[in-house]
């Protein structure tokens, strides 16, 4: 279609467009070119475009024409560009190009300035970050012609939390830049009614901020929204007079134009000067209203911090409370966001939760695996956790997420020493743990270090949350709490070992205080029994912290420095027992857990084979490994011959690999294995090396593969195992493999590292010299340590490897020629170790 063709629809179009313009010009001339006039004009342009759309030859691909920017808002001024998005459902071809020409050419012929963008729907699947103005214009998108459903699909793709957050950030930057160009003042003698501070762009920006963050924001602002609307109408009326006179998109209210505009807008006054003054004083009044509204919006707008969550001055809010009410799975996120941003959950969000919480069951709050992970993450002890859990409790959420907790709400137990209701006592234990996480009090730092060393501190909080739920009944509450916790942990689908640990902590939460305060902990037998009961250092750390905060939450007077000291001593003695004395306690026929292990054996293993394998291993072995792992080890040790090495390498967590090695003991064995792992860049974080009297060695290492060698290379798995076999059997030398890697380690040493600690002890164990080593963790550290031990002619019999952040904590049980080391040999070894550690770290 062309306008030059007489008798076609073209002349109708010209006529229609002229009529629309004339009407707006007449409005402007009467000083009435405000919002209503502009909307009428926009509607007429809409009709024109719809006509053009239906006249243009058809597109095979579904298409929609969408108004953007000011035109999208229906504020189309006389000389404004008509901003359009022509959106196709998919890739376009010849027919669509023909359609575009048919649709756009007549507009150009009319002399209309069209700002058009042609896009395919999937262009909006990714956020375009190079054109913030275009994204802003898209916020005003309004369907004009074509397929409505296509427009709806565009909206769904475009309006995401991430896009909104990006646009908001860009908009705030654009405002600052624009204001800077006007020296950041609205009091301009010749203001630009579109761009100046307080003018139309600021007004739109104010509404955009509200739209992106909190639609009700402006209603809470200092200015009546009606006054903002009046300011807008005024600015638009002024702008219409400017466009009318200039005949182009001219928005500066210059001195010349001020007289003309004052006349058109009908300001009274005998002298032009008086009329101009009245106009300008109105202008500044309106501009000030706009500026205040924008300032308010900028200050008060919630910052998007998660799905449907905003951070505002009164805390975390649901951006859309109606949506939030329907999605209980997003509620935990509000409390998480509050902790992350060191704020609270807003009263409004809390009432929203309170109002709707009774409609949902526990599972509704964590339906997906990600939600369950998020719930556990919420329980990480750190500043703000107690406050947030208390808020959750007050608004009824905690008791819905954990109905078991509801049973102890406001529960009073009269026992003459507890000072608070059971629920508050429980929350206070968590507050105490949270305080330990940040304490700098000298007598408390030791406990903070224990907390830092716990791999999953959220499990301690989970155990604390549930440790007294059994108090809804009057009898033995620890047993009842454990019974109730089984259901909770089942719903959370906690991993088996984590579940066992939490249940252990709940069931035995009174045990450590009983032993520490009521038993003679100077009696080695008491410590030995407690160590056997607790099993591992990790559980010891967790129960110790739990005991401390539980006693402290009974009343302000209950935990005295005296009790703290008793608890600490039991902790240290038990820790030492677990790490240093376990080598003396070998598996016995009647040991707990052994019966079950033997009875439930898989078909391919006989009782005799398992018994033979366990013979001479420390009792601790049964506590360290789950049944399935033990059966795997038995298989690994089967039919082993000198110079053979049996290996298994598997992934045991998102970032953790486990290597199990069974072989017969030989010199440098342990250091060779460590060396091979280090040569592949593996970072050993935990491990156990065990030897039995027949010379069978079982080494189990857990390591992280920080360079993702195993993950990214399909051959890597096999390669690591082959190199291990060759090195352990003596066919390859690990020193050569490590050369390049060690250079790297030396270069990478950091200034923040601390002095290593090495201590040899002949007292702790009846059979071994114990060497405790605490040093900065580094790749190859274990290799270097164990090489020194072998170089000194010592045999590595048992090893415990642990890392706590930057620190490596290794305990070696060693002998020389089958006996403990002499004083001189200890001296030689420790100084050699210190030289190596200090020289290379």
């Amino acid at each position: 279609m062309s306008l030059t063709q007489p008798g076609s629809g073209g002349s109708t179009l010209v006529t229609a467009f002229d009529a629309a313009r004339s009407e707006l010009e007449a409005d402007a001339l009467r000083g009435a070119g405000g919002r209503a006039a502009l909307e009428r004009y926009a509607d007429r342009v809409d009709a024109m475009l719809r006509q053009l759309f239906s006249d243009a030859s058809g597109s095979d691909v579904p298409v929609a024409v969408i108004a953007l920017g000011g035109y999208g808002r229906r504020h189309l001024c006389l000389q404004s560009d008509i901003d359009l998005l022509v959106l196709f459902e998919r890739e376009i071809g010849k027919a669509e190009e023909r359609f575009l020409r048919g649709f756009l050419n007549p507009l150009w012929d009319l002399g209309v300035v069209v700002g058009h963008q042609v896009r395919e729907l999937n262009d909006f699947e990714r956020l375009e970050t190079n054109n913030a103005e275009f994204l802003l214009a898209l916020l005003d998108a309004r369907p004009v012609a074509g397929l409505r459903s296509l427009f709806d699909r565009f909206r769904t793709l475009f309006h995401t939390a991430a896009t909104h957050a990006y646009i908001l950030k860009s908009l705030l930057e654009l405002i600052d830049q624009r204001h800077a160009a006007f020296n950041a003042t609205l009091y301009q003698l010749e203001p630009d009614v579109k761009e100046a501070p307080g003018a139309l762009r600021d007004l739109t920006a104010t509404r955009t901020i509200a739209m992106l963050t909190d639609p009700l924001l402006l209603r809470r602002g200092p200015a009546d929204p009606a006054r903002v609307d009046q300011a807008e109408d005024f600015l638009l009326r002024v702008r219409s007079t400017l466009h009318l006179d200039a005949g182009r998109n001219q928005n500066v209210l210059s001195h010349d134009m001020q007289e003309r505009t004052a006349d058109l807008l009908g300001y009274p006054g005998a002298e032009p000067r008086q009329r101009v003054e009245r106009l300008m004083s109105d202008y500044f009044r309106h501009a000030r209203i706009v500026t205040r509204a924008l300032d308010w919006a900028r200050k008060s707008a919630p910052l998007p911090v998660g799905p449907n969550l905003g951070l505002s001055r009164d805390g975390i809010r649901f951006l859309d409370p109606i949506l939030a009410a329907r999605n209980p799975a997003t509620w935990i996120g509000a409390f998480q966001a509050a902790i992350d941003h060191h704020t609270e959950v807003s009263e409004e969000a809390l009432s929203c939760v309170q109002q709707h919480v009774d409609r949902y069951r526990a599972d509704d709050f964590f339906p997906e695996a990600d939600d369950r992970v998020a719930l556990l993450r919420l329980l990480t002890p750190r500043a703000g956790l107690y406050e947030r859990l208390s808020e959750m409790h007050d608004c009824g959420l905690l008791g819905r997420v954990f109905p078991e907790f509801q049973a102890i709400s406001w529960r009073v137990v009269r026992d003459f020493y507890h000072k608070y209701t059971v629920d508050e006592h429980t929350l206070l234990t968590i507050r105490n743990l949270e305080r330990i996480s940040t304490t700098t009090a000298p007598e408390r730092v030791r406990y903070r270090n224990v907390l830092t060393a716990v791999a999953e501190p959220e499990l301690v909080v989970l155990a604390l949350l549930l440790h007294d739920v059994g108090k809804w009944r009057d009898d033995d509450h620890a047993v009842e709490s454990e019974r109730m916790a089984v259901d909770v942990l089942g719903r959370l689908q906690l991993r088996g070992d984590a579940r066992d640990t939490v249940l252990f902590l709940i069931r035995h939460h009174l045990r450590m205080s009983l032993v520490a305060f009521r038993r003679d902990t100077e009696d080695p037998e008491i410590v030995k029994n407690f160590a056997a009961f607790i099993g591992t250092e990790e559980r010891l750390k967790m129960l110790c912290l739990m005991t401390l905060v539980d006693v402290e939450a009974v009343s302000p007077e209950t935990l005295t420095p005296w009790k703290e000291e008793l608890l600490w001593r039991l902790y240290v003695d038990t820790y030492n027992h677990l790490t240093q004395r376990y080598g003396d306690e070998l598996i016995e026929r009647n040991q707990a857990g052994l019966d079950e292990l033997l009875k439930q054996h898989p078909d391919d293993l006989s009782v005799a084979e398992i018994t033979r394998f366990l013979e001479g291993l420390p009792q601790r072995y049964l506590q360290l490994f789950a049944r399935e792992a033990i059966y795997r080890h038995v298989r690994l040790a089967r039919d082993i011959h000198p110079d053979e090495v049996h290996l298994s390498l598997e992934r045991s967590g998102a970032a953790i690999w486990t290597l199990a090695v069974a072989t017969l003991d030989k010199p440098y064995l342990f250091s060779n294995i460590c060396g091979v792992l280090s040569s592949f860049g593996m970072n050993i974080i935990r491990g156990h090396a065990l030897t039995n009297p027949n010379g069978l060695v079982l080494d189990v290492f857990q390591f992280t593969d920080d360079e993702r060698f195993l993950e990214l290379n399909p051959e890597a798995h096999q390669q690591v195992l082959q190199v291990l076999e060759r090195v352990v059997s003596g066919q390859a030398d690990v020193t050569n493999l490590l050369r390049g890697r060690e250079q790297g380690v030396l270069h990478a040493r950091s200034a923040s590292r601390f002095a290593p600690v090495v201590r040899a002890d002949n007292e702790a164990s009846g059979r071994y010299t114990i060497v405790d080593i605490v040093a900065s963790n580094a790749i190859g550290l274990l290799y270097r340590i164990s090489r020194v031990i072998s170089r000194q002619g010592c045999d590595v019999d048992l090893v415990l490897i642990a890392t706590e952040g930057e620190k490596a904590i290794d305990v070696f049980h060693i002998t020389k020629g089958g006996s403990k080391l002499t004083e001189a040999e200890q001296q030689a070894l420790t100084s050699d170790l210190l030289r190596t550690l200090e020289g290379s770290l």
Partner: protein
Amino acid sequence: MKLIKCIIRPNKVDEVKDALAKLNIAGMTVTEVRGHGKQKGHTAIYRGKEYNVSLLPKMEIEVVVADNMADDVVKAVVQAARTGEIGDGRVFVLPVLESYRIRTGEKES
């Protein structure tokens, strides 16, 4: 009257209290204290580092009894608190010059 002051192991408090109850002694003061005698503390080691434990946690029990009860009380305490190891504690017997009941202000004999 005598003030009998017993420094004992923390885990022996219940046994000592029971022993005193058998002698019909109801009033007592129990305090958590720290100190050392001949035992002089010891060196504890945690993760290869030594730290000195010079003051050990103990419990102090104080009772005031009639002069003629003092010997029995001391015997009962010693019997209940003894383990035979270093660090079992001490019992001190002190004369009490006067004693007043605060509620009534009356002097006790």
